[in-house]
């Protein structure tokens, strides 16, 4: 229903021209400031291109170029390899505001999010007085047509200034739009660059190229040839239907009776349910829907609330998917060399007010990301980046509600945007994204959606926590390695030399300083295979016997390659070893191979131990309580218990080390 309000507005203002309507509603349409105008224009073009490519099942190649013409005037070129637009349609799509006023189809699409490309054309014309040029080609055999047009703003009709048939070299099909407009090109936050970068992350199947006014060319490469599953159009679900829309649908329906109207024009209404609704609403099942009056319509809505209706179908959504989110993030963020991409989480679809929705999140950590700034939140609605109104968005609220301190990021008081070297991605897909306003910059704080995001974040954050913990402890232990391997021998040697005695034995001191079992995993990728080495060093003063567990992707393990026979291998990729005792100061290696995975599918083994005090182990977590369940943790309570348990470990760690804390403080005078 993205357009309905704008349409209503437009209708009320029939007597005034569309240009006046445009002027009055600039802030809603995204053309209120110079920087935002340029961004909105790019957005309208790119969103259309991606939608069109996906509908036609074409892997998108998007090209955006922005040239500076004079101080505030730019030429925006937006080009795609989509199906093209037939000649007859071009003037209407580009030269009429709110053309095709119809219900927007109920499906997950980007197009919902703007008023349409014609608004960009209008803005260009109003600010520069220059026409727009559109070139389009629909098939290899055809020539392209090129149309130069302006809008008649009084009548809201296109005015074609020039049309030609042209040869479009090297292009089988596609559309190219050139708009002159007033704007301001900026870098950084809320810039065209950020928008396209975000677009590239969540559309890993697209190739996106940008040429900026200073001629810098950036290419975001395609990382997958898999098209997102096509989104299905669905009929509205009765739950959450608004009165006005019910009235409109009743007026427009082809059905002759109320019952057939309900069963045919809505999803999930059987004839039994339809009869029940009519009965409760006290209207004749055979009544003509066109005769539906306001008060009986109200009763229908009340009745819908009383009867039991199946939840809406959710197979109409097209999430990005866990693997592709990771690939997309890696592709675009690699120059900041993050050292951890937490496995992203795609939740099962949910429903709010009769609308299916689905939440996905990803977290990236470390590397060159700034560690003293608030984390960056990348928000997306139906694969479109949201750049404005971060504070008022359900995505941000959800991030703020999670206690990130538990997961290794800084957060004052356990609320608010956390600090640390991290980027959090949140994607909400829905047939109807509930935006906070017509400007469509932020997702409204619907409890169902916010809670889903929070769950997804916690899931993802738990993996982050394990990673951070492992890293911190490994770093500490690595320092100890330095001590025992290089410094201690030198101290022994020097002191022996000064006192003129033989060099003392170091083993007992080494185990006292280290006092841990150190587990290290190394993953090397080579010709379609991941070679994994898990090394276990016993740096304690006694023999250690314990069990080791590793999790690898399902079906990837090459059983014959495992160097030390495991006690058990499960289909789900869980491996268990009951190890023989490792003597003090000795080391064992376990190696194995994984087959049939992409390089990015595996970069860090998940390793657990049992039968040993976890405080004495670096590089592996204690075996979680749900190891034997092959399902993933779903129940909130279980998850919380688990977190609590881990916090307990941490305290023990501190106590265990308290005796080390003899630090000295020096003051400079």
């Amino acid at each position, binding site marked *: 229903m993205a357009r309905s309000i704008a349409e209503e507005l437009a209708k009320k203002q029939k007597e005034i021209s569309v240009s006046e309507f445009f002027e009055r509603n600039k802030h809603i349409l995204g053309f209120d400031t110079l920087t935002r105008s340029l961004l909105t224009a790019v957005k309208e073009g790119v969103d259309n291109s991606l939608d069109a490519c996906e509908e036609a099942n074409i892997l998108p190649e998007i090209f955006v170029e922005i040239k500076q013409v004079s101080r505030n005037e730019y030429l925006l070129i937006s080009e795609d390899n989509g199906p093209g637009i037939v000649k007859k349609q071009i003037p209407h799509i580009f030269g009429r505001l709110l053309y095709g006023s119809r219900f927007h189809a109920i499906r997950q699409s980007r197009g919902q999010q703007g008023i349409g490309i014609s608004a960009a054309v209008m803005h260009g014309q109003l600010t520069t007085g220059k026409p727009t040029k559109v070139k389009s080609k629909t098939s290899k055999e055809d020539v392209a047509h090129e149309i130069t047009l302006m809008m008649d703003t009084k009548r809201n009709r296109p005015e074609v200034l020039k049309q030609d048939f042209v040869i479009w070299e090297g292009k089988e099909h596609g559309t190219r739009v050139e708009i002159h407009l007033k704007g301001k090109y900026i870098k950084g936050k809320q810039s065209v660059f950020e928008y396209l970068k975000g677009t590239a992350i969540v559309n890993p199947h697209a190739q996106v190229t940008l040429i900026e006014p200073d001629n810098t060319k950036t290419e975001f490469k395609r990382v997958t040839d898999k098209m997102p599953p096509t989104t299905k159009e669905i009929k509205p679900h009765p739950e959450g239907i608004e009165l006005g829309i019910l009235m409109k649908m009743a007026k427009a329906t082809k059905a002759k009776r109320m019952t057939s109207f309900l069963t045919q024009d809505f999803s999930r209404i059987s004839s039994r349910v339809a009869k029940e609704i009519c009965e409760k609403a006290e209207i004749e099942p055979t009544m003509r829907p066109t005769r539906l009056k306001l008060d009986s319509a109200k009763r229908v809505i009340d009745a819908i609330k009383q009867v039991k209706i199946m939840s809406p179908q959710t197979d109409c959504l097209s999430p990005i998917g866990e693997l592709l989110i990771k690939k997309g993030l890696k592709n675009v963020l690699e120059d900041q060399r993050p050292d951890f991409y937490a496995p992203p989480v795609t939740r099962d679809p949910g429903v709010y007010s009769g609308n299916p929705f689905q939440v996905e999140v990803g977290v990236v950590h470390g590397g060159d990301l700034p560690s003293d700034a608030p984390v960056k939140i990348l928000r997306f609605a139906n694969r479109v980046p949201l750049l404005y109104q971060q504070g008022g968005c359900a995505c941000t609220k959800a991030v703020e509600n999670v206690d990130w301190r538990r997961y290794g990021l800084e957060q004052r008081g356990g609320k608010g945007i956390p600090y640390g070297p991290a980027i959090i991605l949140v994607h909400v897909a829905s047939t109807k994204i509930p935006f906070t306003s017509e400007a469509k910059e932020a997702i409204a704080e619907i409890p169902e959606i916010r809670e889903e995001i929070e769950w997804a974040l916690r899931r993802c954050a738990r993996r982050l926590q394990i990673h951070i913990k492992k890293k911190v402890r490994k770093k500490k232990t690595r*320092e*100890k390695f*330095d*001590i025992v391997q*290089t*410094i*201690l021998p*030198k*101290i*022994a040697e*020097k*002191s*022996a*030399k*000064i*006192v003129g*005695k033989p060099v*003392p*034995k*170091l083993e*007992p*001191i080494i185990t*006292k*300083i280290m006092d841990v079992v150190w587990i290290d995993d190394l993953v090397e990728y080579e010709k379609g295979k991941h070679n994994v080495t898990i090394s276990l060093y016993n740096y304690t003063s006694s023999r250690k016997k314990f069990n080791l567990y590793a999790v690898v992707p399902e079906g990837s393990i090459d059983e014959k390659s495992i160097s030390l026979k495991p006690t058990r291998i499960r289909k789900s990729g869980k491996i268990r070893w009951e190890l023989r005792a490792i003597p003090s100061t000795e080391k064992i290696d376990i190696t194995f191979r994984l087959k049939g995975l992409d390089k990015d599918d595996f970069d860090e083994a998940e390793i657990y131990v049992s039968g040993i005090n976890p405080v004495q182990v670096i590089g592996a977590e204690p075996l979680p309580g749900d190891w034997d369940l092959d399902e993933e943790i779903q129940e909130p309570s279980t998850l919380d218990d688990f977190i609590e348990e881990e916090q307990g470990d941490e305290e023990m760690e501190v106590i265990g080390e308290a005796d*080390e804390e*003899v*630090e*000295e*403080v*020096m*003051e*400079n*005078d």
Partner: protein
Amino acid sequence: MTEARYKNAVTELEDIASDIYKQMDKGKIPSMKIPVRTKANIKFSRKNHVWTLGKSMGARSAKKLNGAYMLLRTLHMMEFIEDMISNSRSSTLREMYYISEGWEQAKFSTQNESNKLAEDLEAITGCMREDFKLRPEEDGARVIGNITLEEVNRKGQKKKINCRDDVGDSGYGIPYNVEKDKIKFKDIGVKFIIAIETGGMFDRLVENGFDETASALLLHLKGQPARSTRRFVKRLSVEHNLPVAVFTDGDPWSFRIFASVAYGAINTAYISEYLATPTTEYIGITASDILNYELPSDKLNEQDIRALKAELSDPRFKGQFWKNEIELMLDIKKKAEQQALAKYGLDFVTDKYLPDKLGEMGLM
């Protein structure tokens, strides 16, 4: 300095090494105990009227990376010092820092680190860095005034110098070694010492001939004074009963300069007895001066305020005088330079300000 002192230094250092060795031989993680050098660990010594180090000890253990590095560095430094002593050489602290380049991982990352380690060794052994053949590269301060001293110059000859008549406008430069084997005071023709923070004010008093009108020895502290400067003042005050007055800018950092001349610095509290002159008087600029003389002033910045607040809990500033002045400065939120006195003309400081202040103390 006599051979005995060097020998003692070697013995003391070997004790430390031997202690480290013994711990390791017993299979223990080696560590080294060091007196803690912080504000919390200085005590007033009634005997000497200076602030000296308390009894708190910190441990440097090889269990931590930094501790392990420090132990290794200490051993390297000991070896180096013993080499110097047996070869009759010496080096500056800066050279010592560069020498560490050859110690691989044990090398110092800043000179501050090596200076501190040298101080640590002094604090542990009770020796002075001169006993370790280490000397600072910075020269001491300058003095002008009617005293005659005898210095053993680098050719080993004794040379008599009158610090008023035998020197140029920049005065006599205090060498890094001011012990008796190097300098003897022969004839003292002044009644007291004025130690001045800034070069500008020192030059003003020299130009105005204040050393003669006031019968004073003028001494330029050059900011936070070097050890040899403080030692020089201490010897004159003890051996010839000369009162000392310190004249600085009016800000928290200058107050600390006074405190280090009078009572010793926190960093070197273990040798305060050698360096500090507890009878030293402070003659400004105070916060009261800023008000009384309506001196041109600057606003205190945040660091200034923090420094003043720290001084309120610094045992060296315990007396009522300092409490009042520090609180007043915090109250008016202003600081002033000594040269702000020029507001009333170039001669104001020598005609009025100093005579008034010194008069109060019975020095003029």
